């Protein structure tokens, strides 16, 4: 981006953070990934921990997350991000380590790694993007696809009898003693964006306090996979996703933050 020069005494009140690279994101128009990427990097910037943060990218739409986040990153195999993050955190316990994973990565192929990482209470942050669909491969059914929801591999809608139930992995993980802070958010409104950022900041601070695993789900849209405009997809998400995946905290630590 070119250098912006405000004149006439106007103050700059919002600008893209330097912890994001200048590479334009490959995501579809209106996709929530870009907002979550930005919020994560805003927190890293505000806490001045760019030199102490190591991220792990998944396989899925956000496979190229490392092209946009200006921090050291590793690209994990499909589903293995939390195992990779465990390895990093164990040998560099003073670094801030996070994974960034979609629903297919975290709740299907990587379920084992996810559950055991949280059960060990690894001091990492897991950011989980749930849009109920495999976006990268073209809109196939995900573990979190809603009942009756049409995808390219559930063309007549998800049939519970043969395809199973949408997996509430976040509720499941909240039961584990290793999970310290578990919360669910969205990025469809300015208020939701502000709330998510606050949660991400808390999660990074808990990591510094070595409290255990912090798990932040973001219910997100997939305009391309859902075959809607971005605005329609946000409305559909509110109407259909939120009742099954209600926003809010699932596990809040009893600790006072400064």
């Amino acid at each position: 981006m070119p250098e912006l020069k405000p004149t006439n005494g106007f103050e700059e009140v919002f600008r893209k953070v330097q912890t994001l690279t200048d590479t334009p994101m490959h995501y579809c128009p209106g996709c929530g990934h870009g907002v979550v990427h930005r919020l994560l990097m805003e927190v890293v910037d505000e806490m001045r921990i760019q030199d102490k943060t190591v991220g792990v990218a998944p396989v899925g739409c956000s496979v190229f997350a490392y092209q946009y986040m200006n921090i050291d990153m590793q690209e994990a195999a499909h589903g293995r991000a939390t195992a990779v993050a465990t390895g990093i955190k164990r040998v560099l316990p003073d670094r801030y380590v996070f994974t960034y994973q979609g629903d297919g990565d975290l709740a299907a192929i990587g379920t084992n790694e996810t559950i055991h990482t949280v059960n060990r209470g690894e001091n990492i942050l897991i950011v989980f993007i749930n849009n109920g669909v495999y976006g990268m491969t073209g809109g196939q059914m995900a573990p979190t696809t809603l009942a009756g929801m049409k995808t390219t591999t559930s063309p007549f809608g998800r049939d519970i009898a043969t395809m199973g139930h949408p997996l509430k992995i976040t509720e499941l993980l909240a039961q584990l003693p290793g999970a310290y802070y578990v919360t669910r958010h969205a990025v469809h409104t300015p208020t939701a964006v502000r709330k998510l950022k606050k949660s991400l900041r808390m999660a990074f601070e808990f990591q510094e306090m070595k409290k255990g695993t912090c798990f932040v789900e973001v219910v997100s849209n997939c305009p391309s996979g859902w075959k809607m405009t971005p605005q329609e997809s946000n409305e559909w998400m509110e109407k259909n996703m939120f009742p099954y995946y209600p926003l809010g905290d699932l596990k809040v630590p009893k600790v006072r933050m400064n």
Partner: protein
Amino acid sequence: MIRGTVLIAQEVCKGCELCIAVCPQECLGLSEHLNIRGYRYVRLIQETCTGCINCALVCPDSAITVFREPKGAAKKTVVVQSTP
């Protein structure tokens, strides 16, 4: 009323219109032209912006920079220049 303005990185914008939907001042709109990536980009269509940053918060591509007039500043016409 507080006055503000936005600067939108035209070549980064994908025209998803999510910023348009959350602008309380209805001051954003799609351009008639396409950017280099083939999207109709968002631009300021009227000078009612208050610099509330709603648009920037929901922008997935971090394409929006927001400026605001400091409180108590003399009323002046805003000019934002882009230098390459």
